[in-house]
């Protein structure tokens, strides 16, 4: 299991990661937690062509700004086939 932690923004489309830490104020952490983005959650990068990135969390697509995606740290999950 890899323990490298990278910003969510660095995930490529299709890749998944486990949220480790959210670097931000109380309000942001709370708002993200409401939408299912909290430490321990599994997120999948869906689209990051331009502007906000689209991620998938527990079956729901959420668009978040790039700056915020940079401050969400995730541990990439490598799927062994």
């Amino acid at each position: 299991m890899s323990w490298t932690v990278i910003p969510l923004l660095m995930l490529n489309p299709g890749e998944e990661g486990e949220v480790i830490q959210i670097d931000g104020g109380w309000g942001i952490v709370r708002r993200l937690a409401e939408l299912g983005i909290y430490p321990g959650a599994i997120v999948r990068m869906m689209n990051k062509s331009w502007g906000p990135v689209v991620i998938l969390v527990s079956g729901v697509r959420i668009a978040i700004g790039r700056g915020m995606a940079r401050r969400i740290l995730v541990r990439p999950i490598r799927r062994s086939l």
Partner: protein
Amino acid sequence: MKKIVVALAGNPNVGKSTLFNALTGLRQYTANWPGKTVERKEGILEYMGYEIRVVDLPGTYSLTAYSLEEVLARRFIVEEKPDVVVHVANSTTLEKDLYLTIQLLELTDKVILALNMIDVAESRGIKIDVRRLSKELGIPVIAMSATKKIGIGELLRTIIGVSEGKVRTKPLRISYGAELEEIIGKLTAKLRGYDLTGYHPRWVALKILEGDPEALEIVRKLPEGDAILSSLSSLGLPVTCPLLADEKDERKRPPCSYCVRIGNSLTCVLIATKRRILAKNLVKLTVRGPRLRTRSEMVDKIVLHKLLGPMVLLCVFASAFILVFTAGKWISDLLTMGVEEAFSLIEAYLAGLLPPLIYDIITGAVFSAIVTVVSFIPLIIMFFLVYSVMEDSGYLARVAVIMDRFMHALGLHGKAFLSVIMAFGCNVPGVMATRALESERDRLIAILINPLVPCAARIGVMAFIVSLFFSGFKATLVMLSLIMISLLLVALTGIILNRLFRGERGRELIIELPEYRMPSLRNVLLLTWPRVKEFLRRAGTLIMLGTVIIWVLYTFPTGEMETSYGGQLGKALEPIGGIMGLDWRAITSLIFGLLAKEQVLAAMSVIYGSELTRILRMSWTPLQAFTFLVVFMIYEPCIATIATIRRETNSWLWTSISLTYTIALAILMGALTFNIGRLISS
């Protein structure tokens, strides 16, 4: 008759309001939660000899006291003890929704899970094992669809069954794992016997470990509250949350200083994670079929593409625009013709019956007001229809994403653009749509730029005047350039305000992107109707009143236009008009746009006389017409918008700043347009 109180809980966007409407029909009323600005909706229905009172709780994602909505929802459940809580969930995003179900089960036993939108889930090949889910959760689970009216009878019968105790519930008790349970157990034991304002000791213990502010407050107020809290340190190591340790601003730090470390993690994180894992496992056990539609992904590849996305957006908006203003105009012409025809018949009939003064008011003012309103209703309806189709299909959320980059220049994020789009229909809902913005500063900027977006009423008037002076392709160009001017001013104003306002910059965009779907006629109509109704209410009263006032002002005291009160006012303002090349008649017409922008045409037909078209063509050069339109487009918002700005900013200062700014800007732009135009043409 036996009475039952039912509370509807659920995430936002799960069709909770649709179910509420389906249950209560027209027997509903709206109030605010005591002392709060959050809306509280209640309704009553009768079923099988029971009077069922339905309370629509605010939409929440969780039940921790992070937001006002969450506090109100859980206080209602604990304090007013509804007989049954119905959790309305979206069948297509069950995992997300079950997170709330699990929390509701910790708060009360009498929960029913209503799997709404089951028809949508089925059409996507999602199969939910309802009986298994019900067994696992220990509560009744009803598959239903509020829009298709499936399962509503079953839901009502179950509500009665649960409230009568005939349907037994045995809610699932979550175990948070040995280590955590030990701490929860000890804390619960300490809290037993105290008055916890109606909450269960275990629940309060859990909430404290989650860092819930309200639970902390309850415990602090207990006689030995502080002792209980500090005893937590013997249970584990109380730590400052490392997730937020580097937050400098004291106020922004979370109040959860009682987090306990277990291994490498914190209790607040562990508790939330446990619930999530439980939700995930429940979905694994009971849901079969595609969780995600790949079709939405394919569409998003194009719609959110770097280059294609904005192009698609431009095409969608251009066609929406053309649709609204050609189809709308066509229907409007047809209606106006019919109404005018009918009025001329009525006029002939009334001529001998009524005293001259009343006859003049009715034919001169009331009828022309009705014609004005009638000619604009189709435009407004078309606009809101198209907007609702975009909303219901899921495209509107993507628009916020695409526009996010552009809106950053104004210091706003993509959601603010939705209020700009709304403003193209009408500035009143436009200003109200800024409520979706979290930061006060962002809201203020969005509210101040909103009146600069030309609403459908203004665009309608502009299109009419443009058609008098320009034709064919040239007319389209003129219209486009006018709208470009207004959008440029919106951008410029936004950029300046962004520099001026130092306050806290709003957070970045966070928005849920729903799956694309075919808009249903029912949904679109349900979304459109309240918007149209609101417009009609305003238009009906304001325009009617305004037209009568104009008529009076231009008839009294002399009966001659030029020497009437209105004429005198216009003449007094003529010097200002002079710098823009506009005479007193044009200026006076504009003044009446204050009541409603459509009013300007009605005012012109009174001021210039019945042969408006011919007279305007004779007395204005195309440049004067263009200048008039520029001024008309920018200057002060109508009275309904002003009232809305006042209500939403809660400040007369900002309201008057908005008013002064738009008027000054209009005069400046008018003077610029006229004088530059003159220079070029000479």
